[in-house]
């Protein structure tokens, strides 16, 4: 006997993600799913962002990590609410993990929620966690071939931060090729060339966040 099914495998995750988004949207909070390879600079970008915007925006962080709380400990130094999720070896966050973490935050006191995902360019791209936008950090030390090697994550990102440009002259990174590939793959995405070490270029990222937070607040139901 044949049973017609036509069911999306990720439906369950997507339903929970939609519930999360409805919940955070009811508070007018803008939520970013921060993605990138291990060591690309996601946590450094977070640290810089909190330092730059903490006085004007109420920020909270959800930290995804396989086993440790090293990143959450780094963020906690900046006196912002931070919730750690340990995936116990799991290569990505999923919506149900984030749903549990949300209960530990006071959503009425937030403008911006940043969810730092597990360092991974493949798995994290398939699982929505209720975010408004995905942002990917790509560092120049990883090589310019990454957008075409891992197209899904870059296709789904509204903004890509090209990090570690202070190291550009020490690498063979071809900036022109990287920008060309990213623009063909995702013509609507915003590209930011920056250094999270010395802060160069990050104003563009901050302005993007400010704009997204303001428009999310404006659309609060």
């Amino acid at each position, binding site marked *: 006997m*044949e*049973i017609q*099914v036509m069911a999306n495998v990720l439906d369950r995750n997507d339903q929970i993600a939609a519930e999360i988004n409805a919940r955070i949207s009811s508070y007018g909070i803008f939520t970013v799913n921060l993605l990138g390879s291990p060591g690309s600079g996601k946590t450094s970008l977070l640290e810089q962002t909190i330092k730059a915007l903490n006085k004007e925006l109420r920020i909270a962080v959800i930290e995804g990590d396989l086993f440790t709380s090293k990143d959450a400990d780094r963020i906690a130094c900046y006196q912002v609410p931070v919730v750690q999720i340990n995936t116990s070896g799991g290569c990505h966050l999923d919506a149900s993990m984030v749903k549990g973490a949300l209960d530990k935050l006071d959503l009425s006191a937030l403008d911006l929620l940043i969810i730092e995902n597990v360092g991974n360019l493949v*798995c994290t791209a*398939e699982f929505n966690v209720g975010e408004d936008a995905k942002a990917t950090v790509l560092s120049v030390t990883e090589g310019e071939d990454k957008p075409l090697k891992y*197209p899904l994550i870059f296709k789904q990102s509204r903004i890509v931060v090209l990090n570690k440009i202070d190291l550009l002259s020490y690498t063979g990174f071809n900036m022109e090729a990287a920008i060309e*590939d990213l623009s063909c793959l995702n013509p609507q995405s915003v590209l930011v060339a920056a250094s999270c070490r010395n802060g160069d270029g990050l104003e563009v990222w901050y302005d993007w966040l400010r704009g997204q937070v303001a428009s999310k607040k404006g659309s609060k139901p």
Partner: protein
Amino acid sequence: MHEMAIAQGILDIALDNAERHGAKKISRIRLLIGKMTGVEPESLHFCFSALAAGTKASEAELDIVILPLIGCCRDCGREFPIEAMRFFCPACSSAEVEIISGRELRVEYLEVE
């Protein structure tokens, strides 16, 4: 290895549907997987067989159909295969291209006994 989570999703859908139709055994699961998904079929087979052991799907064959990456231009309506990850319309050069095939992760049908 997110194929483990995907395989669990497939198994849940298959067992749930088999249960509702009173089936004793699942012999085949037809999957539609788009070219632009991060799923490695070999790894999916491996994860699925590990998870399905001891269930009605333990002998089920995963029949995977890979669907091509196709775009549709929002400006001129042209449908075209996307090659080399270039998301521009070949007819009018518009960058407003919607993916209409290639992102599927779907159980199409089951064969049961």
